[in-house]
């Protein structure tokens, strides 16, 4: 019984923002940057193949990468915690100042990468080629106003 209470307490603590707030801001910045770097790692080959710059098109690699991306696209956002506002990074103050717009783009990245992954897993090359531009545009739109050059 006691064990259950402890476990329930632990889960509650993790589920609430309390666990995050205790995390050091500089660590959160590193983690969100790591997620972004990995997004770049798996995005590069997809963009290369979808745009025809890299050939031949490898549907297996695209399917694997797109699935990774779909998951990675969910990861950076809780790292933009209020406590990280003053940490040194390329994130611009508008991440917090214009937060609604930032959150909207973060959500859009998740829906667009999910669509990409769906086409990629269905081995639908034309679908991937049609969708990759939509994903790229979300990346660029967010880098525009929310990231220093």
């Amino acid at each position, binding site marked *: 019984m006691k064990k259950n209470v402890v476990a329930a307490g632990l889960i509650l603590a993790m589920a609430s923002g309390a666990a995050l707030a205790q995390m050091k801001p500089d660590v959160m910045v590193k983690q969100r940057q790591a997620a972004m*770097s990995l*997004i*770049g*790692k*798996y*995005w*590069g080959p997809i*963009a*290369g193949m979808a*745009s025809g*710059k890299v050939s031949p098109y490898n549907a297996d690699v695209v399917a694997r990468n797109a699935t990774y991306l779909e998951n990675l696209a969910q990861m950076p956002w809780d790292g933009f915690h209020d406590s990280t506002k003053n940490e040194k990074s390329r994130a*611009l103050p508008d991440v917090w100042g214009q937060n609604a717009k930032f959150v909207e783009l973060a959500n859009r990245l998740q829906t667009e990468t999910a669509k990409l992954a769906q086409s990629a897993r269905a081995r639908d090359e034309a679908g991937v080629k049609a969708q990759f531009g939509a994903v*790229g*545009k979300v*990346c*660029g*739109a967010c*880098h*525009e*106003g929310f*990231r*220093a*050059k």
Partner: protein
Amino acid sequence: MLLLWSGLAAAQGDAKRGAYLAKAGGCLGCHTESKDGATPYAGGRALKTPFGTFFGPNLTPHPEAGIGRWSEQDFVRALREGVRPDGAHYFPAFPYPSFTRIVDADLRDLFAYLKSLPPSNRANQPHDLNFPFGWRWLVWFWKFLFFTPGPYAADPALSAALNRGAYLTNALGHCGECHTPRNFLGGPKMSRFLGGAKLAEGAGASSLRSEGVKKTSDKDLKDFLQTAMTPDGDVAAESMAEVVRNTTGQLTPQDLDALVAYLRSLPTLPDEAK
């Protein structure tokens, strides 16, 4: 007879060449609404600046809404001198300080291309400018300070490729309009030409003559200008990504080579004091 025909064609401009020049000039960006399915060149894109918001006008040959009633001479004067057919000054949001360097033959081809577009009746939107920048006659003073009209003259000391690169960068491509910083009057700071600038809307335009560019390989630079991506998968901000889609990604391999060679030939600027 053939001679006469080709003479006439030259006098009227070559629409097909003009189509390529319009891409190299990036006309589409400001002269098309930024929504899906917008009519190309029918105008409507909002350009936010510290002086207010400008709306790109309709460039299609519609007689009322567009430039259907313009003569070739009107068009040449607009780009070379920054003057409307009725004699009023254009605001320099229209980058005529760059376009003035486009040579006559290219201007004629551009005009022929625009005349070949399907006319759109999309009405122009008035600019929304902050006081007192809405006073058009003030532009006369701006031009007096910052504007030197005249087409690009090839530098005989430079190779043909470098001259072509300079022409693409500074006349058609108007790269400096964003990548050269401006003073409080919106005039370019020529001592920091192509040295990178803060933009009104977002983060800023990076230096085209920094150590960073010098250290990037030709292949990576060209890949970036064709795909808007760096080798590690990082994606450029959307305003540059759009330039890549509409302009640099559409250049012929020779022109892209020339552009990169020209940027490499510029001496590195020291970092600006912060």
